[in-house]
């Protein structure tokens, strides 16, 4: 039911058109310019984390939100990207090469997971990703060149604005890409796969290939988000980067905001960062539990997500206002 409603919502609401895309581009540019606009570092940090979780959420949305194949590996894919970028920079690769390495390693990992599980239906894929998430942590903890359980640090000191601007560009670019994809013919075919894979094959859709391409794109985005975050954090700890919590947040953000929409993960990221920030001073470490409960509430009472619920409420409000205006105009009020 949730899958069906999500797809319904996608076809109804994602066709936002050019004004929405322009607004997203302007918002991204504004957010990226915050370091030069005299905004406090606290506000910039909040904006950064919102963009980070938005990018991870869009990466999850791109694969799992659109196809219904639930991934628990996006935290690990971001972790792989972070390690690849930092290792490459420490080896004195140029920035473009480091980002390319992050992208390539995450895509390679997704190919390994996808090639073995995407021919099967959703559950097999979900278990494969969960297994991969745990395996990645074990491997990174064992390897010498990743620093083992102690992790590693970025030896080069980068300007603070660089990873910040990178993350904003990734968040904005990913959101615009998801919006464009959902409005395209390929987007319709992806949603058809989510609806009924057998019927999709009967109309000529190569579901396995399309899912694999989407998963690679999704993993590449997660890898780049991880790379930017690795440069931002400058210290990598495997137990933090490969914690299943990161994958859960990547999943929770679009689920809270609304899956298979471009705006949903933005709403989800704002809600998540807000909750995390409030609880950090009141009850540190409790935010994952609260987000879990929120997720449960959204699934039970608002299963199209917060963004869609707000959109509907605004539309209802406008409808009531419009009717009232009409009554006044007719002299009936």
């Amino acid at each position, binding site marked *: 039911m949730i899958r069906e409603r999500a797809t319904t919502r996608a076809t109804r609401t994602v066709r936002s058109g050019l004004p929405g895309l322009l607004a997203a581009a302007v918002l991204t540019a504004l957010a990226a310019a915050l370091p030069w606009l005299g905004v406090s570092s606290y506000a910039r940090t909040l904006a950064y984390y919102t963009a980070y979780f938005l990018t991870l959420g869009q990466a999850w949305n791109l694969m799992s939100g659109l196809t219904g194949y639930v991934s628990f590996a996006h935290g690990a894919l971001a972790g792989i990207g972070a390690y690849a970028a930092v290792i490459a920079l420490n080896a004195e690769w140029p920035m473009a090469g480091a980002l390319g390495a992050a992208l390539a390693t995450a895509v390679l990992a997704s190919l390994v997971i996808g090639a073995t599980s995407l021919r099967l239906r959703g559950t097999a894929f979900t278990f494969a990703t969960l297994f991969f998430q745990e395996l990645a942590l074990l491997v990174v903890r064992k390897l010498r060149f990743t620093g083992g359980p102690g992790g590693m640090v970025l030896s080069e000191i980068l300007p603070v604005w660089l990873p910040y601007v990178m993350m904003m560009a990734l968040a904005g670019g990913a959101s615009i890409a998801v919006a464009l994809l959902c409005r395209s013919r390929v987007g319709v*075919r992806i949603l058809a796969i989510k609806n009924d894979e057998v019927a999709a094959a*009967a109309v000529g859709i*190569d579901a396995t290939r399309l899912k694999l391409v989407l998963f690679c794109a999704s993993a590449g985005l997660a890898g780049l988000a991880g790379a930017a975050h690795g440069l931002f954090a400058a210290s990598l700890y495997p137990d933090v980067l490969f914690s299943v919590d990161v994958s859960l947040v990547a999943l929770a953000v679009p689920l809270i905001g609304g899956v298979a929409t471009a705006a949903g993960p933005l709403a989800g990221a704002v809600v998540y960062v807000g909750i995390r920030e409030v609880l950090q001073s009141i009850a540190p470490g409790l935010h994952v539990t609260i987000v879990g409960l929120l997720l449960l509430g959204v699934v039970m009472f608002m299963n199209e997500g917060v963004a869609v619920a707000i959109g509907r409420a605004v539309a209802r409000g406008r409808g009531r206002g419009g009717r009232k205006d009409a009554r006044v105009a007719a002299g009936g009020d």
Partner: protein
Amino acid sequence: MRVLDAEGLAKHFRGVTAVNGVDLAVAEGELLGLFGPNGAGKTTLFNLIAGAFPPDGGRVRLKGRDITRLPAFRRARLGIGRTFQVVRPFRALSVLDNVLASVPSAAAADGDDTEAALALLRHVGLAARAHALAGELTLGMLKRLEVARALAVAPCLLLLDEPLAGLTSREAGELLGFIGSLRERTSIVMVEHNVRLALPICDRAVVMDAGSVIAEGAPAEIRANPEVIRAYLGEAAE
């Protein structure tokens, strides 16, 4: 010219023979009726032709090309369109998007895809519901939507699996008239339980029982075939 040529198709499920060495040929522009009692193997034969699963024996040729080992999506791209016994629309997509989701075969005309999809919807009488969700349609409309979706692949062979099931007699009559009119653009194989309604519009009919073909011929020959009467039509055909 033969559009479909299936030879010796066989399928077994856990020791049970569903289709047992069936030969089936369909000529260009032909409407072939495929009849038989429940469990005769008609839908399994359909699935073997459409590529839903591979056969245990035999081969399938489409316009002379061997497609026996090709997956379903490749067969659709080569021009096999199909509907399902139990309708399988993309319920959460709009009616128009259901048709736009199809990947047209090489035989499809170039041009505006949306206009072509709307033309198909007009053809099946659903243009007025183009922007409604497929999940909001009645069964009769869904059956027509599935036909439009199958036609969107620009098929040279259209497989219709019990298109009249669950329809009112008025809806069934309308759909049969529409199916008859499709012969101009594609060859058709139609599985149907309602022999009385479906047989008259067929050019030729094949009757199956227990996984094998027991009769084949023109509608008049089928009606008069004693084995068919015994196995399937019974006294109702008298």
